[in-house]
């Protein structure tokens, strides 16, 4: 069913958007890429699966995941970004965070094995669905979509309206002048890593619930694809990451529906290259990329 | 110096816009063979933009630049350099991780125009004598093996000039070479510029210091808000009330 595929695409797209917003937040304040981000997202799935297996309710599992992944994000910032603050060091921090991701991946595979681990969901939850105009929508998927949208809206509001958000925007504009205004730049950067990683963790659990298992290769497949989506939407632009995620999710679902599934990955990367060449500020970025950052 | 009939460089109605902001507004003037032309104006008058357009770093929005009668408006930066148009940069831009000597040697046109052939050409060798002579004349020979990034401010300015000269240019734009220099350093710089003058067809000097520019220039072009507001001999130009208002009125005079 086409409508069902589109809804599936939107659900998947909202997860892409969550991960991509993490990349874009970090890029916004530091002008650097966090290559450990995909593996933190992957880890989220496993923490979620294990929490549920140990008897945690789904909301509790989500909370646990966001705490653990957020903490790990702080560690990534400390190990791979704190010392490499200068502009020239963007390669060093990218490679260092990449190596950090390798460690996370290996430790996950040590702890949970290399095979996917199934999540134990109550039967009632799994089959529950809504019928609308003759189309069935899974309740689980719709909840994932709903929570993802709420989280992103909350993030958007927090950055647009709160004083912490103002600090983040100030650091994104210029760390030097932000520190002149008495903003603790390091604290702001930590906050950004915390937020980005917690959101990635949520996306990890949501994916595990949606597909029914946690898998160790999603960090490198979906996690990296979200990086491309971030660039498509506009590097450092939250709204761009959101719209880019939904767009790619839907396009991908349509590609599978019409039998081009094999080409979806190639398509995303070629699309990213095209966007970076023709409109480096991204498809959805506001007029000035500097203004639109974080 | 007697100017020949054909100008070395002719700038006609040059216009440059940055996102609707007009940086150059119908600039026209000639640079005659043999002259040392002073280009002055308050900050933001468009002097550096003009040099950037003429040296091919920015494209012109409208207007033409011709060199010895041929249109060079659309040529890329490296081809302009090969024609003999050289420049220095207002904010010093040396190759900081290369040695002083390398900064000069790299400018050798015989090699940088044919980078791959330079590998196999018979008898190809660095013209060390010429490079060292050049360094001698800007008083940097002692520093020949120092990294350019470690030079003091005045030394770095002089090395920029030496590097620009090492390519054997016909026309040289010096973009505020005396900025931040003290009186003694400025006099040394003036001596350096004079000593190189015969080797070049023309020099354009952008400078704020009225004494220095009056002393060195044959002729002045005054810019304000992207337009040329006066040209002529230094004495006449500084007597022009429009210049006094636009330039001296806004800028604090250093001396």
């Amino acid at each position, binding site marked *: 069913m086409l409508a069902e595929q589109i809804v599936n695409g939107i659900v998947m797209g909202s997860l892409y958007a969550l991960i991509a917003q993490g990349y874009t937040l970090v890029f916004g304040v530091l002008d650097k890429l966090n290559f450990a981000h995909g593996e933190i997202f992957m880890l989220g799935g496993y923490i979620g699966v294990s929490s549920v297996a140990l008897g945690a309710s789904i909301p509790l599992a989500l909370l646990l995941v966001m705490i653990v992944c957020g903490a790990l994000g702080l560690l990534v910032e400390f190990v791979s970004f704190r010392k490499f603050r200068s502009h020239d060091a963007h390669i060093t921090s990218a490679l260092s965070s990449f190596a950090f991701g390798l460690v996370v991946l290996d430790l996950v595979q040590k702890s949970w094995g290399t095979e996917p681990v199934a999540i134990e969901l109550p039967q009632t939850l799994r089959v529950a669905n809504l019928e609308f105009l003759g189309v069935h929508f899974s309740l689980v998927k719709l909840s994932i979509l709903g929570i993802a949208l709420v989280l992103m809206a909350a993030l958007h509001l927090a950055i647009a309206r709160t004083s912490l958000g103002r600090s983040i925007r100030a650091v994104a504009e210029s760390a030097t002048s932000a520190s002149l205004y008495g903003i603790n730049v390091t604290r702001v950067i930590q906050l950004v890593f915390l937020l980005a990683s917690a959101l990635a963790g949520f996306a990890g659990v949501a994916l595990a619930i949606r597909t029914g298992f946690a898998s160790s290769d999603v960090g490198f497949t979906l996690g990296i694809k979200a990086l491309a989506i971030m660039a498509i939407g506009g590097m450092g632009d939250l709204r761009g990451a959101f719209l880019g995620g939904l767009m790619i999710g839907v396009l991908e679902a349509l590609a599978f529906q019409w039998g081009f599934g094999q080409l979806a990955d190639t398509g995303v990367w070629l699309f990213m290259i095209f966007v970076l060449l023709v409109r480096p500020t991204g498809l959805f970025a506001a007029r000035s990329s500097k203004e639109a950052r974080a | 110096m007697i100017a020949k009939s054909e100008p070395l460089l002719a700038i006609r109605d040059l216009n440059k816009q940055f996102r609707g902001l007009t940086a150059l507004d119908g600039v026209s003037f000639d640079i005659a063979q043999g002259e040392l032309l002073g280009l002055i104006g308050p900050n933001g008058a468009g002097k550096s933009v003009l040099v950037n357009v003429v040296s091919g770093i920015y494209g012109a929005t409208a207007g033409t630049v011709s060199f010895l009668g041929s249109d060079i408006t659309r040529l890329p930066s490296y081809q302009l350099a090969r024609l003999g148009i050289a420049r220095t940069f207002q904010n010093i831009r040396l190759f900081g991780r290369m040695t002083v000597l390398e900064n000069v040697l790299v400018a050798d046109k015989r090699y940088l125009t044919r980078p791959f052939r330079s590998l196999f050409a018979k008898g190809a060798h*660095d013209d060390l004598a010429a490079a060292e002579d050049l360094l001698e004349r800007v008083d940097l020979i002692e520093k020949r093996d120092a990294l350019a990034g470690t030079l003091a401010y005045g030394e770095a300015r002089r090395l920029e000039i030496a590097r620009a000269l090492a390519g054997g240019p016909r026309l040289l734009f010096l973009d505020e070479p005396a900025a931040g220099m003290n009186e003694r350093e400025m006099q040394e710089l003036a001596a350096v510029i004079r000593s190189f003058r015969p080797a070049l067809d023309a020099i354009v000097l952008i400078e704020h210091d009225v004494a220095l520019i009056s002393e060195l220039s044959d002729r002045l072009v005054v810019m304000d808000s992207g337009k040329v507001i006066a040209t002529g001999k230094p004495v006449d130009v500084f007597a022009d009330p429009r210049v006094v208002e636009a330039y001296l009125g806004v800028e604090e005079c250093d001396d």
Partner: protein
Amino acid sequence: MIQDYVMQTGVNILLAWSVYIILLSGSLSFANGGFMAIGAYVSAVLTVKFGVPLILAAVLAGGVAFLFGIGVAFPALRTRGLYLILVTVGIAASVRAMLESIDYVGGIQGFSGMSGASPWHVVALVVIVGAALWLLSRSRLQRILDAVREDELVAASMGINVLYLKLACFGAGAFIAAVAGSFYAHYILFVRPDEFGILASVYIVLYVVLGGMNNLWGALVGATIMTLAPELMRGLAQWRPTVFGLLIVVLLLVRPNGLLPFRIPTTGRAKRRAVKP
């Protein structure tokens, strides 16, 4: 066993040099895993399906990658810094994804049937490329490239055709990566698209960054250590990837400019000086 080490180290040195060659003109390429894949697949198709001799196939594959490298670099070089890095990441990812969808070369299952490469092919190539880079490091071309890498705007304003040099470096780097990939494929006997892609590309860049980006020895040392270090960790076999990852993190913290960060001046006086990034 020792043959495997020689082969792996040699291939990785060549790949590291292929990144170093592109870096000579100031661009950091994460596309070299893709160039290597093109080399491996093109040469494999030539030898297996058309019976072309290995060396010729490797050179032809190198030629294809050379053209591909220039073809993708021409538009890609419109971007700078992290944007260029992302574009090259995209190239590596697209090459892999494309190979996975081409049934003619086995798609996701991989491609086999080639053979005939020995470690000596690779050792010979390491010697040739190393000698060429050593000669280059003492030449005027190196000096011109250094100028481009330091400040391309100034280099252009001196008369250097920056784009031409950058394209040449991309082409040459792609060529070396592809020839290395050809020998690799004909030694390992079986290739799959997921061996290349982004992961391989990042590893290659790591060799160069950890070794040092300002001279040819850095890439050589970085690739050698990073290839053999996991073997030396046999005692830790179970923890190898974790220890390896931590080793990289620590090395970057301790020596962010690489193990051998110096640049050798091109004026013959081989005074070695520490160079900051």
